[in-house]
């Protein structure tokens, strides 16, 4: 365990009756990082967060905070404030009283309490609502109250359980930058649970991807995006074209033999005979009308649809075998391409843009 580790999960298992929510978690959270835990519902991400907060006890394994095991510490004896999906603001207290609550529980004196609450009300730009009831606030304002309420004790770590999911799209994006800036300025470790890839990737320094109670990959957003470690991750991100097959020895290196065709791999990456999946980012997959000269990985395809969102165009294509392929480009990049439905094209990519993951 290195010096900059704040939290470590060591072989942590959590079961509810016969249901295994989390199996054998082993990972570390670094001091001062913004860590996102991402996965679809039921993957164990919220359970993981709740165990860290002390709201669930691990069935097996040890959770350490600053090196000390905290398994047996009740939540009210740990400093792991959490922001709930529902925000869990107290409706019977006004904004100021909500923000002062945690300080009051710590026995901080009235004057000091007021001063520290004032700072956070100011910082979150909600001073003018200090005397209001929670029911009189908008979604974004409530969000700020919830953050102020948790941060007023200036903890080492802040846990967030999908706090933005109730907001509309525009507000969500604004709150993302509020959160990211807040984390950068305070240096507080943020652990952010979400099912949204855009939230995780836009804010987090590192992302943990979970599925069925297991960690599939931990890494920076770039690492995960460019080099997904498992087929699940590549599938989950949905930004790559996947080709499953078997590794064979080919001309100069290795090739992957798939139902769609035989593709040249970049370097020696797997044992010959192994089942594997080749992932190619949709932005690194190219299209042309004529079969491109010199290209080694080419798939003949037919256009089945197109979609324009902002500056990017997404083309949906189909191979002769019925596999769907997606290509994402800027508008100008495909301006000369005939993209009528049914149009025959060639999809191709450079071998160095293909990334092989074990398991088919």
């Amino acid at each position, binding site marked *: 365990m290195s010096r900059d580790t704040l939290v470590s999960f060591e072989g942590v298992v959590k079961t509810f009756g016969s249901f295994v929510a989390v199996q054998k978690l082993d990972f570390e959270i670094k001091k001062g990082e913004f860590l996102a835990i991402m996965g679809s519902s039921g993957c164990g991400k919220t359970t993981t967060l709740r165990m860290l907060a002390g709201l669930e006890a691990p069935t097996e394994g040890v959770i350490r905070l600053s090196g000390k095991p905290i398994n047996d510490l009740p939540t009210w004896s740990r400093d792991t404030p959490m922001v709930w999906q*529902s925000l869990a603001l107290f409706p019977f207290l006004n904004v100021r009283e909500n923000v002062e609550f945690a300080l009051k529980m710590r026995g901080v004196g009235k004057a000091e309490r007021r001063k520290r609450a004032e700072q956070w009300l100011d910082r979150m730009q909600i001073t003018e609502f200090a005397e209001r009831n929670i029911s009189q606030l908008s979604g974004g304002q409530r969000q700020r109250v919830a953050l102020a309420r948790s941060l007023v004790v200036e903890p080492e770590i802040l846990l967030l359980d999908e706090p933005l999911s109730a907001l509309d799209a525009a507000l969500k994006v604004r709150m993302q930058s509020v959160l990211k800036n807040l984390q950068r300025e305070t240096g507080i470790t943020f652990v952010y649970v979400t099912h949204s890839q855009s939230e995780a990737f836009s804010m987090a320094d590192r992302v943990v991807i979970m599925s069925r109670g297991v960690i599939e990959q931990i890494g920076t957003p770039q690492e995960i995006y460019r080099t997904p470690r498992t087929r699940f991750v590549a599938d989950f991100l949905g930004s790559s074209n996947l080709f499953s097959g078997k590794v064979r020895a080919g001309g100069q290196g290795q090739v992957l033999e798939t139902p769609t065709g035989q593709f040249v791999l970049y370097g020696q990456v797997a044992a010959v005979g192994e089942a594997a999946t080749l992932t190619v980012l949709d932005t690194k997959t190219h299209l042309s009308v004529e079969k491109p000269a010199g290209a080694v990985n080419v798939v003949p395809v037919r256009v089945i649809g197109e979609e324009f969102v902002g500056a990017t165009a997404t083309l949906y294509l189909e191979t002769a075998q019925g596999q769907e392929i997606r290509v994402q480009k800027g508008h100008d990049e495909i301006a000369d391409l005939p993209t009528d439905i049914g149009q025959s094209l060639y999809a191709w990519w450079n071998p160095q843009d293909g990334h092989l993951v074990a398991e088919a």
Partner: protein
Amino acid sequence: MRRPITLYGLTFSLPLLIWQVLFFVFPLLFLVALSFWTVKNFVMQPDFDPVNWTTIYGRAVFWQAYGTTLTLAAAAAVLTSALAFPASYAIAFKLSDTARRWAVFLMVIPFFTSYLVRIYSWQIFLSDNGIINVILGGIGLGPFQMLNTVGATMIGYLTLAFPLVVLLQLFSLVFIDRTLIEAAHNMRCGRLRTVFEVVIPSARTGLVIAALFCFILAFGDFVSPVYLGGGEPTTLSILITDTTKSGQQWPRAAVIALTMIGTLMVVAFAAVKFAYKGKSK
């Protein structure tokens, strides 16, 4: 904006309206009129004389009974609420769904028997030769006077209101958002403190309404102060029966009754206002 009254709406609301007018507004108006009648030679005659009001309000015994009744009812409300709360809390937060349904069912059972029967059975327990004194005598204690005391009256009020108060409290406790409790724990608020800082404020409306019901039931109750309290100290309900028995003084009894109704209205309005304080509609 006013919504038009439809025939459909009237069909359903009219019977209730007629009922209220016939059996509440009418008798109330009659009671007001009656309080101005006079009694001559044990015969009531229609009149408009404030003599009943001045007589009753001029009597120390009335104000004493008024003070007693207010105090007893308030004490019953506080005591019943305090005793019922741990029970409702346990039912709401500690029991499984099945056990909670059974508990609610058990709380309804007391309503199957008449309140009068339940009070009489308390006499068997509390009297000088009653079950409790016999048991205590067996170990060389007592006998203690338990019947005909204020304590016995209070037991009667508890018997009357406890199950209802538990049910009313329960229905506000089960709707508390559990994440609020978790959030309080998460902010260093221990279990017991959370009850006072979060659970009670969250359930305030229900808790106040439950206490109000207990107050109303105890304030007007005649059975417990007579059959368990032995008529001492005198409550307003006892004073009403005494007044009617002594020389056909129905008009004076009407004054007492109207005073009670007025008091209950003031208390009820104040309680409801407090219960919903700070809540947006």
